[in-house]
């Protein structure tokens, strides 16, 4: 609690971003970004899940409730899922979460995003994180606590 209170006053706001990466594509992509030494902001924490279909909307809402400023879900490209259709479920579920819950709660919908990153896209992963962090910085803290 005190941490966030100071956070709101800070002009140089450092967002806290939660990233869900699927084990087979995006996590390997993040690994590649690290191995190839692409620079990206250190504001995010990665949670590795076996598939983007594992990410329950409850996780996202809970993360927002507990003070995350943004949540990014990454998975394999459509058609490349290791479990054939996990990311399709994720996409469908995520669409409904966006339209029905996040919007109606009055939380800016840009704070929650679903992206596809494959294992070879290390560069793209770094760019994505940079862009997303900048976007959250522009939006400012979520002031939820």
């Amino acid at each position: 609690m005190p941490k966030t209170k100071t956070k709101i006053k800070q002009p140089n706001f450092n967002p806290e971003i939660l990233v869900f990466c699927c084990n087979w594509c995006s996590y390997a992509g993040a690994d590649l970004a690290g191995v190839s030494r692409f620079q990206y902001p250190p504001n995010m924490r990665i949670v590795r899940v076996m598939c983007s279909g594992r990410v329950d909307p409850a996780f996202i809402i809970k993360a927002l409730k507990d003070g995350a400023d943004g949540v990014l879900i990454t998975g394999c490209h459509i058609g490349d899922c290791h479990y054939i259709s996990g990311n399709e479920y994720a996409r469908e579920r995520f669409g409904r979460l966006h339209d029905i819950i996040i919007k109606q709660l009055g939380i800016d919908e840009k704070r929650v995003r679903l992206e596809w990153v494959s294992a070879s896209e290390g560069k793209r992963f770094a760019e994505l994180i940079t862009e997303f962090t900048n976007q959250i910085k522009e939006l400012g803290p979520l002031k939820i606590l």
Partner: protein
Amino acid sequence: MKHCYQCGRCSGVCQLSKVQKYTPSKIIQLILEGFEEKVLNSGVLWDCLTCNQCLKDCPEKINFADIVRIARYKMRHEANQNPEELIAHKGIYTTIAEIMSRPYIEPKRSLKWVPKGCKVTNKGDILYYVGCLPFYEYEFEDPLSIAQNALKIICQIEKKPIIVLEEETCCGHDIYWGQGKLKTFIKLAQKNLEKFEKTGATTIITACAECYRTFKIDYAKLFPNLSSKFQIKHLIEYVYDKWKQKEIQFKKPSKTSKDVEFTYHDPCRLSRFLPEEINLTDKVREIFAALTKLGYTFTEMKHNKSNSLCCGVNSWMNCNEKSKALRYKRMLEAKTAAPILVTSCPKCEIHFECLQNDFEDIAEIQILDFSEFIVDKIEMINPKTEGEKKK
């Protein structure tokens, strides 16, 4: 609680005791004997349905549901228990309510669902409180038809714009009863009342049994002057009053319409949980009696009014095979009574409809909310041109 003389009637009537080992009388005895900590630590009270059947049959009027509510608060804050695995739908709906209680969050509900022909404002006399229905659209089938039909009824009768708030917050019922998070509940209540006061409304109408009970009784405890500011009405009460004031009448069934036979499931929040003078169970039955005269057939289930069986789940807690057994029991009873089951609690409707996916033998029963049921059976009484039909 000290009045308890261990007649054991509560354990006998307890609906949960039919499907699992659960004895309210024994729990009371343990607490009285000084084993309060043991009861709290065992976590057995998270299982309670808070259906209040035990209070109804208690000779000493011991409010066990209130004991459970206070115990849940203690279990969470003193015994540090977190019942996350017990919350249905992974706690998504209770988390939504918690987010809404935070001071900087202003919900922006979309009002796309408002049916054509209904005008909506944000200042006026009458406020329609939607509740959580827009959020249920996330995984349930068409919950907003309850809100649409309720609003249609009110608009039809009032003929002026009705307040529907975009920034409405949750009433906090599930947080209060199921989770034992009293502080969150108070925050939600304050937020809600501020918003109501801004609109200048005098009457608040809701179609949800839980919201009604929360506003009428729990909010009144927190804010003693609430009842002087707002009149809180359930849709049943509203339709009943207008009918008694001879503003509306009920239509005869058309020959082609199929919904002639129906039965009614009393939600616990509208029967056992209300003080006797409100008496919604009788009011709704007077409406049904009037409908019966017009040619509809109303059949009572075996357990009705304040004896009605529970729908099996309360405040998003404990949706498991035991609660399904309770629901199945209720549905079998409904099946013997009539092909249409009317209820007035959106959650009961959701729970029953969910069970219909699992069991084929009860899938034929049509489950309707009171608003959905009554909407095409109302017509206005117009003093100039009699019997003019609207919609």
